[in-house]
C-alpha cells in the first residue's frame, strides 16, 4: 500500500501512520512489531509534512521476513545526511517545534527502530529512505531485548 502525505498538513500529522499501524495489525503483524513500524512511519510522515517541498509517499509492503517501508519525496533534499542523523540536530520551523515536533530525533529514531536502514538524498531532487523491520522479533534485536 502506498500512502500520500501532503507538505504542511500538520493537522492530519500522524494519521497516515496510525492507519498503517492498524493495517499491519489486521494483517497479523504482532503489536510490538507494528509499534516499531508505526514509529518509523510516524517519523517519516512528520518529516514529509515539515520539510518536504511538495509532500511525498510512504509505501508499506509486508514481505515474508520483513515489513519494508519506503519513503520518497521530491525535495528539497538533505545536504549533510550525517549531520541530519545526529540526535538533536534540527532545521525545523517554529510551527513544528511549537507542537512538540522537530527536535532532531526523527531520522535517528527511524534508524533505531529498523533492522536495516538506507537513505539517499540529492539536494534539488529529493530524499529516499528504506527501512526493513523483521516480522518475527522473537529472536531478539538490541532494542527488543532492552524492553524485556
Amino acid at each position, binding site marked *: 500500500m502506498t500512502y500520500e502525505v501532503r507538505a504542511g498538513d500538520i493537522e492530519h*500529522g500522524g494519521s497516515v501512520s496510525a492507519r498503517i499501524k492498524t493495517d499491519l495489525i489486521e494483517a497479523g503483524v504482532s503489536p510490538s512489531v507494528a509499534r516499531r513500524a508505526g514509529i518509523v512511519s510516524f517519523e517519516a510522515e512528520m518529516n514529509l509534512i515539515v520539510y518536504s517541498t511538495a509532500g511525498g509517499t510512504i509505501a508499506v509492503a509486508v514481505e515474508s521476513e520483513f515489513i519494508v517501508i519506503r519513503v520518497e519525496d521530491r525535495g528539497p533534499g538533505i545536504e549533510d545526511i550525517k549531520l541530519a542523523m545526529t*540526535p538533536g540536530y534540527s532545521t525545523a520551523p517554529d510551527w513544528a517545534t511549537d507542537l512538540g515536533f522537530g527536535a532532531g530525533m526523527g531520522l*535517528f529514531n527511524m534508524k533505531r527502530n529498523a533492522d536495516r536502514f538506507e537513505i539517499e538524498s540529492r539536494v534539488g531532487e529529493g530524499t529516499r529512505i528504506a527501512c526493513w523491520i523483521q516480522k518475527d522479533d522473537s529472536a531478539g534485536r538490541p532494542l527488543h531485548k532492552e524492553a524485556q
Partner: protein
Amino acid sequence: MKLQDVAKAIDGDILVGQDQLDLMVDRAFAADLLSDVLALTEERTALVTGMTNPQVMRVAEILNIIAVIFVRGKTPPDSLLEYARRLHIPVVTTRKTMFETCGLMYAGGARACRSKAVSDMGVDA
C-alpha cells in the same frame, strides 16, 4: 497503581476510561516534546503531557500508550476525547503541574518507563 488511584492522587478527572478504573498504571513517561516521546519510551507506559493537539493521541496510538494524563489544567478538545474513546485509551486531566503530577504518581508507586537518554545512544549515521 490503578487508574482510579492515579486520578485520586493527582486530583484528576477521568474523561475517558471510566470502564477501565482498575487498569494498572505502573510506568510513566512525562514530556511535552512529542519527538522525545516517540524516541525514548518503551512499551506499556502512561504518558504525562501538557500538549493537547490531535497528534498526541496519534503518538499514543502508535506507541501503545496505556493512558494519557493532561497536566496544568489543559482541556483536550472533544475530537481528541472522541479519538481516545475509539482507541480505548483512558484520558485523565489535572490542574496540577507536570512536576507535581509525576511526584504524586511516583509516591503512589508508579515508576519511570524503560527509556534511554539521548546521550547514551550510539550514533553512526
